């Protein structure tokens, strides 16, 4: 069984590191000595993590190269992403979207904290998670309590709630999908759909 939680190619991380590091340092990277030198190989001591491209369903294997060795005092940041050569479908190749994934992770338009826009407001306002989740839970409950249909006109128990809807993602994991299913169905939500519809 080939379980491989993080990385197969320890070659770069451990075994090969001693040799290649000494080779590199022997050359000297002091700028004044750099008469003719290739750029330093930037993945020398990064940490490799196996992942899957989140875009289309070819689901190419990617390797995330993280800055640092995951030591406690060095929170990792992904500095490079490249195809996983072991992956039977992608075999290390990527399309332009996959090859540009690093810029998705570090997009300047990533959201960093919960925000709220009040009715009629022109601006977002930063809020705390607790405030946002409490407020959303309250709004959900208010609407559910008000519009929950326990029985239809024929008196059949239907236990449905159709005045609030949920649109699920297309790139979240199965585990996210499952917990989302549990939570939303338990509320009796029927207006429940995902990107597969379009």
């Amino acid at each position, binding site marked *: 069984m080939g379980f491989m939680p993080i990385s197969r190619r320890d070659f770069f991380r451990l075994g090969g590191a001693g040799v290649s590091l000494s080779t590199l340092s022997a050359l000297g990277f002091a700028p004044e000595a750099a008469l003719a*030198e*290739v750029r*330093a190989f930037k993945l020398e001591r990064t940490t490799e993590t196996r992942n899957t491209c989140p875009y289309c369903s070819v689901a190419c294997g990617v390797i995330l190269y993280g800055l640092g060795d995951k030591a406690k005092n060095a929170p990792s940041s992904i500095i490079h992403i490249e195809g996983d050569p072991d992956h039977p479908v992608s075999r290390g*190749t990527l399309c332009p979207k996959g090859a540009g994934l690093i810029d998705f992770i570090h997009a300047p338009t990533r959201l960093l904290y919960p925000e709220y826009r009040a009715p009629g407001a022109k601006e977002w306002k930063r809020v705390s998670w607790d405030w946002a989740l409490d407020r959303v839970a309250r709004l959900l409950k208010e609407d559910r309590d008000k519009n929950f249909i326990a029985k239809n006109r024929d008196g059949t128990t239907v236990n449905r709630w159709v005045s609030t809807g949920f649109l699920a993602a297309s790139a979240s994991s199965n585990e996210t999908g499952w917990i989302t299913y549990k939570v939303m169905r338990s509320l009796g939500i029927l207006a429940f759909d995902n990107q597969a519809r379009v």
Partner: protein
Amino acid sequence: MASLQSLDIKRRSATTLPAPDVRVGHEEEVAKLIDVGRCIGCKACQAACLEWNDLRGEVGTNTGSIQNPPDLTANTWTLMRFTEIEEDGKVEWLIRKDGCMHCADPGCLEACPAPGAIVQYANGVVDFISENCIGCGYCIKGCPFNIPRLSRTDGRAYKCSLCSDRVAVGLEPACAKACPTQAISFGSKPDMLELASLRVEGLKERGYKKAGLYDAPGVGGTHVLYVLQRADRPELYQGLPKDPKISPLVSFWKGLAKPVGLGVIGLGVLAGFFHYVTVGPDTVEEEDERAAERDMAERRGR
């Protein structure tokens, strides 16, 4: 001069002495094969190049084509060039990955006046060493393929390095790794030539009678090879030169002109020197001064 393993330097720009060459010829020459017949123009190579080399240009505009950016730039080292042709009612979409060809006989290196700003490694990679680049742009004039570009910000010239940093540690260039359709392959030059001949054969079987390899003998062959559907007319692919060679102008400028020019200047100086020591200075004698005084007195006296 030593560099990383397998990257001994074979040639160095603006250097009068030969590089240490005992290993040259015994290290494997590498090549990148671009099979235009398998290319779908997805730009994965372009993206991978930006990613690996940490390059990001500007977000431009659409100029009426899906070719973006429209041309190579100092931070666009490779570019998919899209050409649509129509012959006998049949449309063909020719998509060529443009970038440095890594010539065996590199015009950029020949033209470069800055010692060590351009080097050719024993494996065939032609690399720009930015620290040594003085930004004169001579490489641009030297290049038969019009590849290098000057940076607007730091003034230096840039181009594809064939990911020399990856190749140095035994990896393939980023573009070759990413290419999803195996339109780009990377390996030893003999292997790539062999693969190319298979690909050419395949294209011919599929009706591309004029398919062929593009290896530019005029520059001693290249370390980036093309398989073209229309090898008879490479210029169809947005001006890929049919028979590229280093311009005779550049050869003269950087060839004959240099020693002869300097020699003649030296001769001129020598000529003066020997004229001086043989003929002696042309001095104004006392006699001349007197004659002048005499003339002046005569005129004034009149």
